[in-house]
């Protein structure tokens, strides 16, 4: 079966005063129909830029897709014009952002915003669009949806706004929903409501979900497959069970081990395994592995040659020289 979305060799760079910033530098991601894929990594690793590149939602200039293909349902989106992409947005691909206020229009009621998208993309009449909007607000558990459909975004709490965003992203029943840190600013109870809701909607509409997060707990609870990004590159990719059971890349191992856990008794008051240092600047990155300055296992080859993604177990790929038997013969 052909994948729903296939990102191939994507490079998105930004022109800055200090030089070319290689935010996304050769990323491959495959997303199958109906699948939940989590993209995880610390801030500045290129998660958002990858997601925004799909529908060219990044500022161009300074941003530019330098190389690569983004194949959605067999069609490359990279060469498309912004009006073609507008049609795909909402109807085929829904977006949910971390801060709902950036994508909700403050001077329009939430009902007008959702209904407008339904009329434009689905050709519904004013009356039908309103009815569908109320139905969507009910689905995302906004109490008294008929009454609240005419309220403005600022009249909702943070968690409710995020649910309104979900209603808007899903109104046209897209095949793919991209959620960029949709719960990062929210309390755990509200986070749990939103993640349950996304799961619920996914099952109801059979859509695929690309969930971007930096929280390993969220990944473990929602993902089927996981892509770990570091400094503009994919460093590991696996199904969720393998990733947590046997993380192969030193960065992934560090991410999993550095968090305190309430499910393990023995963790209490034992020292956390921090990863030293910070994510490097993505302008003129040093040759070799981008994780090398922070890696405990780094050896001679790491600062000379860049590791490429290779399969280490069925469906499990990672980019690290460790245990690479091919490297020894080179």
């Amino acid at each position, binding site marked *: 079966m052909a994948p729903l979305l296939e990102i191939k060799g994507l490079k998105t760079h930004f022109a800055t005063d200090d030089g070319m910033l290689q935010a996304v530098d050769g990323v491959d991601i495959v997303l199958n129909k109906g699948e939940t894929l989590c993209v995880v990594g*610390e*801030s500045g690793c290129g998660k958002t830029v990858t997601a925004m590149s799909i529908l060219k939602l990044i500022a161009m200039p300074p941003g530019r897709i330098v190389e690569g293909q983004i194949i959605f349902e067999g069609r490359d989106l990279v060469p498309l014009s912004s009006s073609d992409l507008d049609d795909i947005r909402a109807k085929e691909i829904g977006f949910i952002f971390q801060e709902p206020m950036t994508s909700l229009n403050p001077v329009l009621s939430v009902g007008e915003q959702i209904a407008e998208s339904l009329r434009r993309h689905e050709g519904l009449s004013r009356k039908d669009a309103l009815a569908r909007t109320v139905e969507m607000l009910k689905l995302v558990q906004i*109490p008294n949806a008929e009454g609240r459909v005419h309220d403005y975004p600022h009249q909702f*709490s*943070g*968690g*409710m706004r995020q649910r309104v965003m979900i209603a808007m992203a899903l109104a046209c029943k897209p095949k793919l929903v991209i959620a960029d840190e949709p719960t990062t600013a929210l*309390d*755990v*109870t*509200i*986070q*749990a*409501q939103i*993640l*349950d809701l996304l799961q619920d909607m996914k099952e109801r509409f059979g859509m695929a979900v690309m969930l971007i997060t*930096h*929280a*390993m*707990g*969220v*990944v*473990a*609870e929602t*993902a089927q497959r996981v892509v770990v990004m570091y400094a503009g590159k994919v460093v590991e990719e696996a199904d*969720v*069970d393998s990733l*947590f059971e046997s993380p192969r890349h030193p960065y992934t191992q*560090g*991410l*999993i081990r*550095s*968090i*305190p*856990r*309430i*499910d393990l*008794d023995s*963790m*209490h*008051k034992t*020292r*956390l*395994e*921090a*990863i*030293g240092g*910070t*994510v490097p600047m993505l302008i003129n990155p040093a040759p070799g592995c981008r994780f090398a300055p922070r890696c405990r296992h780094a050896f001679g080859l790491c600062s000379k040659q860049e590791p490429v993604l290779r399969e280490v177990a069925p469906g499990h790929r990672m980019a690290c020289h460790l245990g690479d038997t091919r490297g020894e013969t080179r």
Partner: protein
Amino acid sequence: MSEPLLRVTGLKKHFSVKGGLLSREVGRVHAVDGVSFAVNRGETLGLVGESGCGKSTAARCVLRLLEPSEGKIVFDGHDVLGLSGGDLRAMRRNMQIVFQDPFASLNPRMTVGAILGEAFTIHELASSASEREDRVASLLVKVGLKAEHMRRYPHEFSGGQRQRIVIARALAVEPKFIVCDEPVSALDVSIQAQVINLLEDLQADLNLTYLFVAHDLSVVEHISDHVAVMYLGRIVELASARDLYRHPRHPYTQALLSAVPVPDPKVKRKRIRLQGDVPSPMNPPRGCHFHTRCPIAEARCRESAPELKQGSDGHFVACHLA
């Protein structure tokens, strides 16, 4: 056990909300509504709860960065609310705060050396410029930075390094007690671990006492000896970290803990779903503040507020049914 370093009793802080043409009081936010707790010397008390429940307000009242409306605060044998002028300043030296946002809390126009040196000058802790420089250098080393960093400006540091500078500034005056208000919330997980380890090392070396405010329940369990859970201005449960996380007794604590995502896909936990959002603290529900969302509420919960009562094992809980 010796007397706790800090004992807070019946603390209240109400903010008046003004509106209309004449700016008359239209309501009151009961941000902190009768809170009592104690922190033992050399220990950490964690304070958790959803956004807006009053954690920061309570913490700021303890330091008198906000004037409490009511209550009693005893720190190291002194009645904090009775102090003023020089006595209050002297007391403040012993109580410092580290905020969430290391970007906002450092003056961008001052070098790190000047920022740290200022604390010594205010409290007259260094007699000469060279002594001040020596102390700044040793502080920087203590928080895992380098002496030469004193000549740099805050923007030249990463988020985690800036938080180390903020911690160094708090340590400059050799306090006994530090309020950490979401000190790692703005940091990436790997950096979070670095800063948590630093706070733990400093506590062990300097016998510091912490009040640690955060909404990340995993981080709070890791760092705290005792944990207090707040809901709408009140403490609903307080116990040793281990006891509270293993055997939560209050329905709110149980729901909160069940919502924490665990980084192990094999662990399938039963989630207690709470309905609705936290009610407005301007109009908190009558009786038990939690009754509008409590899955086991009864008629009496709507009438009378449960008191925070201590069980035989030292575990405090405020619920009619616990």
